[in-house]
């Protein structure tokens, strides 16, 4: 029986090849699109799950109350790890992971590298396989250095890295390390990323004993491996007692709490601040997952539409089978089997398509995803096949099996099949999804362009940043020599030497307690007198730094408008900074967006010397290594072409050091990667949704025309012009698409409004974009319908009437 079903299914599919093609390819496109998107979403959701002990691994975080404010941090005191191990029986092992960005020297070459200082338990807790060298105890001593495979290749090429020496600047010292082992690169879906690993035995070089034992000095991530029989709740319950014991009389009741976060929760939990690695907004995976499912549903709707629409052609077969003794159940089974066959074809084709498109997709979203060859994935494909079979096959099966044989065989049954309401509903749903996606992709595109084009308050074009990869003492003189060398070139407009460029934000975060006993914070950057000029910032009041005025060096500060507003300064010029900071304000800059456009402009202080600020701040936060960076403004022309000029000048001042550079506009664009990725996917998805919907519409109109062939023939004989026939057919569908627009527009508006809430600076949701989306879909649909119906309308009516 099954063989018989499959045979007839296959033959009827082959008999209507065009129709089968539309059905299968529509579903295949939907499946492949859905698979690729879900692959991305899956990788987002499965971060850090590759550790075999991931269900027992946690990261500790702290909630510290200080005066009226709470400081939540995943960066913890150094002493937390050992304390947890000693005091909490549920804890099997801990590992501190501290992120450093020191300068690494090999011969004459210097690089800034991502180095992690970790406890030796690192390789017991985590699944980072040691490939070569001392696999038993890779971080045995303070001088041991473990390289990632790519770092080993970068420094030593194909020659063996193990046993080689590297110098690393730690604190004020340059220390020699010997490569003890090479470890595999961290997978992309890991919240722990490294180029090099050194042992925690080096902590003493970085900070004094007092800082290492202090509970109020936070420096490191602390990972915890619980015993197999322990729960996080049981362990957490003992934390308050542990803290009371550790802090003694310093313990503010309920004021310093430690919590555990499952390691697999790290990547998508943006309610906690980011640790060593940035986290993702889970919203984007939800958005993308829904886009993937919408595409799949549009494709399924298409399948149902076509199957039901086509059912007229199967009506006679159903009638005959019923006469021959088929029961309804058997017919339902037959048509479900057919749907299953088509779905299998579509899923296989979709899989192939997805495999083919994986590389372009990876390029598009800047990821390195791969299809997993595991049972989970196979199971997913199977479930997908079954779900799509049911979703797409059940309704047509019901409709087809319901036909009354006596009527069908007499030819009384119109080739309609299925309720008109459902058919119309599906068309409306398809187009509503398509229109909403079109509108959203236009708005997302506009917002991304806005990111790139908004006036930031400085001129972002023609800027190249060259890091010195040196500490301040050495770096500033080198950078200034470089500046002089560059200024002799007519192509160079200006040069500024600063601790941070616009590519590395946030800058330094400083904090102090004001007279009302409230904690205040602002951003700080160490600049040179040419900063304002080079970046083309606008001065609101007062003046910029003057290289000729010596008092500017130690005692002057330039602030931004946000600073003036935040601290309520009247007549700011000449005033001392608030708090205990001694510099006086000599100028106020118009607000400029030195941070990303997700957040509004925050208060900022610029000075020429760090001491007056560093000495009086209560808190210092740095996200990037402080080192002199040279920002070069070129007069114009191709930036890439002028890199050589910068390189030659670099070689003249630092002959034995590698030249590094970044284009500022590229660094700025990278800030909006998540938005751009979503934008790209939504854009492609909306194009696909439209494609599938149009494909379906085309087939549906073909079927409608076949059904109304006689009616059209009669109308033509009675003298109706072809254009009126086209109008007749088009109007039906135009109404449906109008209805779809009415559903899509509020949906799109709602989605976009909630998306834009994430940004401090946004575009407006112009009404014409909504109109454009609706009209665009209508135009495409009418074109499809028009071409098809014109062909029927223009054919000789005698042909269609004669067959009766």
């Amino acid at each position, binding site marked *: 029986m099954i063989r*018989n079903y499959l045979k*007839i299914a296959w*033959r009827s599919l082959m*008999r209507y090849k065009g129709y089968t093609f539309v059905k299968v390819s529509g579903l295949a496109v939907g499946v492949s699109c859905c698979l690729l998107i879900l692959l991305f979403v899956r990788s987002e959701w499965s971060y850090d799950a590759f550790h075999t002990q991931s269900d027992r691994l946690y990261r500790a975080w702290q909630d510290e109350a200080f005066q009226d404010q709470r400081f939540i941090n995943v960066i913890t005191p150094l002493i937390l790890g050992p304390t947890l191990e000693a005091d909490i029986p549920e804890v099997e092992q801990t590992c501190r992971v501290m992120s450093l960005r020191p300068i690494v020297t090999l011969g004459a070459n210097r690089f800034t590298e991502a180095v992690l200082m970790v406890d030796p338990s690192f390789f017991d807790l985590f699944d980072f396989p040691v490939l070569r060298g001392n696999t038993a105890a890779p971080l045995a001593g303070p001088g041991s250095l473990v390289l990632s495979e790519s770092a080993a290749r970068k420094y030593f090429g194909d020659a063996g890295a193990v046993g080689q020496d590297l110098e690393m600047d730690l604190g004020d010292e340059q220390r020699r390390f010997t490569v003890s082992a090479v470890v595999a690169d961290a997978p992309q879906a890991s919240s722990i990323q490294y180029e090099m690993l050194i042992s925690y035995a080096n902590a003493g070089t970085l900070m004094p004993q007092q800082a290492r034992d202090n509970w109020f000095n936070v420096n490191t991530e602390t990972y915890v491996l619980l015993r197999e029989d322990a729960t996080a709740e049981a362990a957490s319950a003992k934390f308050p007692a542990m803290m009371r014991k550790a802090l003694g009389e310093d313990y503010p009741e309920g004021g310093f709490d430690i919590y555990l976060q499952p390691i697999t929760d790290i990547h998508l939990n943006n309610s906690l601040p980011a640790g060593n690695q940035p986290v993702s907004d889970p919203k984007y995976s939800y958005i993308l997952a829904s886009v993937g499912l919408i595409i799949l549903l549009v494709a399924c709707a298409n399948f149902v539409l076509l199957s039901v629409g086509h059912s007229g052609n199967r009506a006679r077969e159903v009638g005959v*089978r*019923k*006469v*021959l*003794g088929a029961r309804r159940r058997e017919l339902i089974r037959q048509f479900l089997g057919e749907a299953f066959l088509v779905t299998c074809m579509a899923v296989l084709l979709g899989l192939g398509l997805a495999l083919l498109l994986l590389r372009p997709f990876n390029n598009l979203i800047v990821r390195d995803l791969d299809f997993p060859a595991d049972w989970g994935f196979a199971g997913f494909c199977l479930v997908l096949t079954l779900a799509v079979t049911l979703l797409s096959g059940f309704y047509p099966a019901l409709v087809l099996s319901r036909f009354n*044989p006596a009527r069908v065989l007499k030819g009384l049954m119109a080739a309609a099949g299925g309720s008109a309401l459902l058919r119309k509903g599906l068309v409306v749903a398809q187009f509503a999804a398509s229109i909403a996606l079109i509108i959203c992709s236009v708005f997302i595109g506009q917002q991304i362009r806005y990111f790139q084009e908004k006036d930031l308050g400085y001129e972002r074009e023609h800027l190249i940043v060259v890091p010195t990869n040196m500490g301040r003492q050495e770096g500033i003189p080198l950078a200034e020599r470089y500046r002089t060398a560059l200024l002799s070139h007519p192509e160079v407009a200006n040069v500024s030497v600063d601790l941070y460029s616009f590519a590395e934000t946030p800058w330094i975060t400083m904090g102090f307690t004001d007279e009302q006993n409230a904690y205040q914070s602002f951003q700080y950057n160490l600049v040179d007198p040419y900063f304002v000029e080079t970046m083309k910032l606008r001065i609101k009041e007062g003046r910029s730094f003057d290289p000729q005025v010596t008092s500017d060096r130690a005692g002057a500060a330039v602030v931004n408008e946000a600073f003036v507003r935040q601290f309520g300064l009247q007549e700011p010029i000449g005033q001392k900074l608030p708090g205990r900071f001694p510099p006086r304000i000599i100028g106020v800059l118009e607000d400029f967006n030195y941070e990303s456009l997700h957040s509004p402009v925050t208060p900022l202080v610029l000075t020429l010397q760090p001491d007056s600020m560093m000495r009086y701040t209560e808190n210092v936060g740095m996200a990037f290594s402080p080192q002199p960076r040279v920002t070069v403004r070129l007069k114009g022309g191709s930036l890439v072409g002028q890199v050589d000029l910068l390189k030659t000048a670099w070689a003249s001042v630092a002959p034995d050091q590698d030249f590094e550079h970044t284009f500022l506009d590229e660094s700025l664009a990278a800030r909006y990667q998540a938005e751009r990725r979503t934008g790209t996917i939504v854009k492609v998805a909306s194009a696909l949704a439209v494609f599938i919907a149009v494909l379906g519409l085309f087939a549906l109109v073909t079927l409608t025309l076949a059904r109304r062939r006689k009616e059209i023939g009669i109308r033509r004989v009675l003298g109706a012009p072809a254009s009126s026939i086209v109008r007749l057919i088009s109007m039906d569908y135009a109404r449906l698409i109008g209805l779809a627009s009415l559903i899509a527009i509020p949906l799109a508006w709602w989605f976009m409004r909630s998306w834009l809430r994430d940004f401090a600076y946004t575009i407006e949701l112009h009404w014409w974009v909504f109109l454009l989306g609706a009209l665009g879909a209508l135009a495409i649909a009418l074109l499809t319908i028009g071409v098809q119906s014109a062909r029927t309308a223009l054919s000789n009516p005698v042909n269609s009437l004669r067959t009766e």
Partner: protein
Amino acid sequence: MLLKLENIYKWVNQGGNRTFLLKHLDLEIDEGEFVSVMGPSGSGKSTLLNVIGLLDGFDEGDYYFQGEAVHQMRDKERARLQKEHIGFIFQAYHLIDELTVYENIETPLLYQKVKSSERKALVGDILDRFNIVGKKDLFPSQLSGGQQQLVGVARALISRPKILLADEPTGNLNSRQSREIMELFKELNREGMTIVQATHSEFNASYGTRILHLLDGSWTDTPEL
């Protein structure tokens, strides 16, 4: 007696008017009869055949098949009765286009859950008997009308029904093909098969052992010509 219709009514309501398709109709058919039902278009021939064949219901009256009260049966029993005892032949043959001759004939057996080996034997026999072994792998579109109807008859007979219902079986055939089909019916009838055919043609009707005339859903003694 094979079947008995008593006082059968069937109607449709159209715009407040009731149109009778069958009206006060009685019919008894014995096993081994060959009944020809004649009448002009719209007289109710097809409707009557559909009612007898359980393809269509009726609104009033009693129907007994082999003494069982069909009008009191549930759908399931009726379906079983139809599947096991009734064979249909249509004017438009109604073969399934996607199946070969062999598969078309085999289909009723599939629905009766007949075992594969037995199916093979039964289909083989009937192909032999109708001299169409050579055509068994062809599709309906590759056959002439007469050959298609031959397959239609073979398919109706494969499940060994008690009664064969033929609705204008030769309506789409030329006279030579018609005669062949009628000869076949005659022979089947001689072997004991009960046949009811609806037809326009006096000549075809004359093959029957009994001729009935239908007009506007009721029997009439004087056939209108």
